[in-house]
């Protein structure tokens, strides 16, 4: 009898703990839930506008496959939590935040600081801290979400592809919520958040005589694309937006912080024709050195590239020509890193962060100087050294343009 009672109690406890009983609030049926996958945050007067992109999963008829439907919803509230609760006034399904992959925040919202808006995502029990953060330049987060969804694409998938391919050019990066939180709470280093931009495609002037083609071009307005390019940089103390690093300057920043995966460097052969180099490997060491109280920091970059395309006809595979290409790529990388340093010095924010390197290498010294770091940072002497090599080319050696003799 006693054993039966014990077993019954254990089963009962497991039953309710597993969320199968109605007294457990918060349980959700998989088919009755909207899974938030992408979130957009915008400013709306004195409120926050919250846009959520949801995915619902439901069994397709007579198959085991699941059907995905993307929808987006917009609401406003004084806080993110309040705005989230307002969804329940009109949505026909329950919202689940445990699948949030991307958080888009508009530039206008971050101008006064990012920290306030991270609290919800850090605190909420459903959200995961590995969701990636993006700041949307000029446009609102809602606009960028609408742009992609209205064109019939899946914004979460688009962002996923952008994130996966970010290393191909290495002009931006990925920053999960917890990493942004860690840097924001460090008052000595500036935070960086990847930047999304909406680019309008320029209408090309064409001399096409095809009347039909011309009329189609006139009917279509300028198309817009969502592009992952650059970083938004935030102030260490207030987490306010201080500026952007885009294009090759952002790549220079990535060289400095060791986030280069690949990339393209276009140099010129002796005849002035383009030679495209593909970055294969890059490693940068930040070496701090104290001369008395004066701090000198050297960025030492080692770089390997392969020749990916030759537009001229010159034979490049001589010591002299390879040396010429190496010299050019060294100069280009050096310039990009220097541009990132100039940005940091201009805004007096340690974006690399050098403070961490100094702390790691000189922990005792760091303890004495950390309170004056922002002042010390502006007085640092920076050196950039690039040591690169070109390792190989691919399937053919001589360029296509070189002609056989006779």
């Amino acid at each position, binding site marked *: 009898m006693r054993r039966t009672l014990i077993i019954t109690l254990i089963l009962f406890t497991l039953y309710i*703990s597993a969320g199968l009983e109605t007294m457990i609030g918060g349980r959700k049926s998989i088919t009755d839930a909207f899974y938030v996958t992408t979130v957009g945050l915008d400013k709306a007067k004195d409120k926050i506008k919250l846009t959520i992109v949801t995915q619902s999963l439901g069994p397709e008829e007579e198959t085991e496959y699941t059907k995905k439907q993307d929808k987006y919803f917009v609401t406003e509230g004084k806080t993110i939590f309040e705005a989230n609760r307002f969804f329940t006034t009109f949505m026909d399904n329950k919202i689940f935040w445990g699948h949030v992959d991307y958080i888009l925040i508009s530039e206008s919202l971050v101008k006064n600081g990012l920290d306030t808006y991270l609290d919800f995502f850090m605190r909420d029990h459903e959200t995961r801290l590995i969701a990636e953060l993006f700041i949307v330049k000029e446009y609102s987060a809602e606009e960028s979400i609408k742009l992609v969804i209205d064109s019939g694409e899946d914004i979460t998938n688009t962002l996923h592809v952008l994130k996966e391919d970010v290393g191909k050019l290495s002009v931006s990066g990925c920053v999960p919520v917890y990493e942004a939180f860690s840097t924001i709470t460090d008052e000595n280093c500036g935070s960086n958040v990847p930047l999304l931009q909406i680019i309008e495609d320029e209408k090309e002037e064409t001399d096409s005589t095809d009347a039909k083609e011309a009329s189609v071009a006139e009917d279509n307005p300028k198309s817009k694309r969502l592009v992952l390019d650059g970083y938004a940089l935030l102030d260490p103390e207030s987490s306010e937006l201080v500026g952007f690093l885009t294009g090759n300057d952002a790549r220079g920043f990535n060289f400095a912080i060791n986030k280069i995966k690949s990339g393209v460097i276009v140099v010129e052969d002796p005849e002035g024709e383009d030679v495209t180099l593909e970055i294969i490997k890059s490693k940068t060491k930040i070496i701090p050195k104290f001369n008395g109280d004066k701090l000198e920091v050297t960025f030492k970059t080692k770089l390997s590239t392969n020749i990916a395309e030759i537009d001229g006809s010159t034979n490049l595979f001589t010591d002299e020509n390879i040396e010429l290409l190496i010299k050019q790529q060294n100069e280009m990388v050096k310039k990009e890193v220097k541009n990132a340093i100039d940005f940091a010095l201009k805004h007096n924010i340690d974006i690399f962060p050098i403070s961490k390197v100094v702390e790691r290498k000189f922990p005792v010294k760091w303890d004495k100087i950390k309170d004056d770091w922002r002042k010390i940072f502006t007085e640092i002497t920076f050196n950039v050294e690039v040591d690169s090599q070109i390792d190989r080319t691919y399937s053919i050696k001589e360029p296509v343009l070189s002609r056989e003799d006779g």
Partner: protein
Amino acid sequence: MFRNKGKISVRQVMIILIITVYTPSIRFIARATSYSAKQASWLSPIIAFGVYVIMLFILNRFYKKYKNKNFSEVILDNTPKLIGKTIIVIYIISITLLLVLYIRYFGERFVTALYPNVDINIFIISILLIVAFMIRSGIVVIARMSELMFIIMTIIFVSLMFIMVPNVQLENVTPISTLDIIPVFKGSIVTIALSYLPFYFFFSHEWSQNDKFLKHGIMAGLYILIIEVLIIFVSVGLMGSTVISRSPLSFFIAVKNINLLGEISGFESILVSTWILTDFVILIVYTYSALNMIKSLFNLGDFKPFINIYIFITYLLTWIIAKNVFELQDWGAQFAVYMNINVLIVIPVIIFMIGKVRKVV
């Protein structure tokens, strides 16, 4: 085999110790140590291991000298009766408060991390009812159950570590310098406070006698050292000390954010399952130990008639101890840790010293 019928082996006691240290370790040691020692917090358990080894030698003396006697009898043998009884009362109060803390945390853990809109009583009453029934089976059944749970716990912990350790960012757990010595010592206070072995000496009359106490004790200590270092190392290494020191469920947060191969997540559900199992062991063992203390204090033949009333009192205290989780956390950090150090380290050392002076041990 027959000689030890109705008793548990020292190995089983050490398994119980490991489980009962594992459950609070998951909950708070990463947060508590990284709050003081930041990136160097993973070194804190080494200090605690040193203290544990010293305690192990002291307890070994008691174990060898007082065969088939429990810690209450050791206390009464080494101190005047009134003082001895007072010390036992202190132990009863301490273990009851600790038990109450763990019961409340058991419920709070669910409503914080998984079911925020659920009445916490559902979890608390369920577990207490099971404890009330299971405890009647005796320590042998509890120890065997613990062995099984130990295997499950180890498999799950090792699996999680396999996934988590390769993703640790070394810059989050370095640099280590002389500046970290004091913070590491400060951080080690909470790990020292988990040296629960003296509590289990209150039912040491139910341990079988052998000469492997030190060997099993050191093995258990090393096991605890490894799991504590790993819990802190991966938590801080993955999320950084800033995030971990602010999170009430630090290791849970780190596990929740595992994303294996960019696709598979939700590993926290596995962790929660070990939590329930190991929490159950800690609650049942503490209750068993507390009831043994009461039995010794009042010279009772059996504690079974007191099981229900004791558990009911602990349930009431669960609500009296703190109005909300913030009070509970403050209570744990500002009182329970130091209470533990006093009853688990200071008092046994004093009794040992008295015994030495009196040449009893």
